[in-house]
């Protein structure tokens, strides 16, 4: 996903951080939110296994709004992919969040999304890189 050119040329790359649920379970909600916003503000895409609770999502939006500085950081885009989860001896099925993708606003372009499939092109300035 990330290309690093030789030191003599300008670097155009998209850094993506993949975080498993176990990496996040040890953190408090505020630590999770701060970690996500700090990385996204630097221009990274954060992909986390599972999702945030509704309260954490609201806190993420609130924290993002506090961190917006109009010209340099305009906010975030969030996308989630669901997965089916069977429970009660396989008799009932419900949807849960499989992965959550959070990135700087307007980096994820041309997103095609269904509940269990996401395809996007990341805006890297002059060039675009596909991410499936």
């Amino acid at each position: 996903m990330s290309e690093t050119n030789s030191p003599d040329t300008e670097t155009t790359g998209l850094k993506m951080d993949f975080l498993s649920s176990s990496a996040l379970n040890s953190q408090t909600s505020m630590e999770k939110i701060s970690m996500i916003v700090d990385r996204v503000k630097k221009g990274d895409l954060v992909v986390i296994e599972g999702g945030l609770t509704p309260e954490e999502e609201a806190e993420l939006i609130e924290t993002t709004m506090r961190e917006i500085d109009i010209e340099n950081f305009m906010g975030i885009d969030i996308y989630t992919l669901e997965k089916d989860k069977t429970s009660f001896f396989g008799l009932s099925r419900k949807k849960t969040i499989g992965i959550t993708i959070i990135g700087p606003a307007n980096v994820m372009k041309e997103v095609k999304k269904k509940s269990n499939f996401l395809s996007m092109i990341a805006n890297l300035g002059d060039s675009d890189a596909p991410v499936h």
Partner: protein
Amino acid sequence: MNMPRFFRSKFFKDILNKLLGKNKVLKIGFYGHPNSGKTTLANRMTTDWIGKPIGTISPVPHETRRVYRQEHVTVKDDGVELNFDIIDTPGIATKIDYTNFLEYGLSEEEAKERAKEATKGIIEAIKWLDDVTGVLLVIDATEDPLTQANITIMGNLEARNIPFIIVANKIDLEDATPEKINSVFPQHTVVPISALNGDNTNLLYRKMVDKFK
């Protein structure tokens, strides 16, 4: 102390009413994306029932940038009254790009100022989720309803056990698909209306009395 007189006092009755929740005011929050028609709906409701609008509307997104409260609104349906305060909130978004306002004729300075106010308004709207006791989630029926902002709002309402109605707005527009909102949220009450023209608002008032009374 004269016990019988004490139990007849206003002081004691006020405490008793508070413990029994009889003094609780129903606060219905209007939530949704920017430009979904929340303030247009709030104006429609306050004009219908108390004769005056609550706020200004505009085609420029983020027109409402702080929470407006209209107290003592009474909606009547079939002899039943619903008394509540309207809490009109700024539209919730995950990003604000001030350059989007330039296409509406705002100067760069005005656009940046509007963007800053919009971020503060969104923070205020999220904080009000702790205080509202009912919600109308206003969704533009010409847009995709499954946005992160709508999902976050609904998730928080469900987690907090706050009753809500989904209002599929703008059915007066040709590309409105309120049935899509119905199919995406079959477990919730969805009412298609046009807040601008007043289409189907009587059904919304009836559903509000059913849901929030």
